[in-house]
């Protein structure tokens, strides 16, 4: 089971209390689609993703960004058992959406860059470490039901 230090718990709660959910999810997903264009293949029904401007102003991308943040919030509220919390989500991504799990790391990287940009100097190396540990656990939990 993942062990969290008091610092790590506090850092994660702090980050999620400060970031703007409406902005961060959309920004992270947009960056993923722009920086790693092959991820667009999973969003065939999202309409215009032909360039960066289209992606960042696409309402379906924005809406899906909020879905992602809601999913992350569940992990933040259940830090001691993210694996069980994400069991159905993992099955969904594996069996129905058929997402290559390597892509979870790409979205996680984009999320880190967005949060770093939002927090600026407050995203210290220690806070950065705690956040990446959290995302590593999230990614591992999403991968868990893949066979």
């Amino acid at each position, binding site marked *: 089971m993942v062990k969290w230090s008091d610092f790590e718990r506090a850092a994660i709660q702090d980050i999620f209390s400060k970031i703007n959910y409406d902005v961060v999810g959309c*920004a992270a997903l*947009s*960056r993923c689609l*722009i*920086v790693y264009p092959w991820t667009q293949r999973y969003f065939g029904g999202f309409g215009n993703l032909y360039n*960066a401007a289209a*992606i*960042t102003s696409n309402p379906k991308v924005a809406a899906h960004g909020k879905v992602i943040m809601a999913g992350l919030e569940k992990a933040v509220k259940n830090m001691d058992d993210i694996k069980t919390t994400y069991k159905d989500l993992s099955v969904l991504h594996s069996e129905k959406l058929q997402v290559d799990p390597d892509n979870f790391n790409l979205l996680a*990287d984009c999320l*880190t*860059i967005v949060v*770093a*940009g*939002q*927090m*600026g*100097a407050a*995203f210290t*190396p*220690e806070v*950065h*470490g705690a956040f*990446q540990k959290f995302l590593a656990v999230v990614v591992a939990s999403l991968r868990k039901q893949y066979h």
Partner: protein
Amino acid sequence: MVKWTEEERRIVRGVWEKVDIDEIGAELWARALIVYPWIERYFGSFGDIFTTTAILNNPKLAALGKVVLSALDTAVKNIDHFKAMYASLSRQHYEKIKVDPDNFRLLAECITITIACKLRAELNPQVQATWQKFLSAVVEAMSSQYK
């Protein structure tokens, strides 16, 4: 050979102009060692790197950060042919320091995140994509002499 559009060249130079080598260099290795602790194995002669506080205050790490960014400066200024210029650096990391090349990618991530904290909204999706393309080329150049 990597092809660069005029726009991409402008973006890379634009990001680099805003990087203070002393400031960013000092933080760079701190993030790498805190977020990816196994990297400590390469720093046996750097003194105390065993706590977050020690890492953040270690002068040898800060100095090495500047060395890395000085090398990156060479790449920015010679964007069309730095791969050849990096050959001896790559050989040194392969034969002498024996660095697992996966770590180049991790350090590149830490560079991007340190810059994201500094540049914030200026590191927009387009700029991030171009900057990451540049760092991928640097990572590839660093890996070029590995067999």
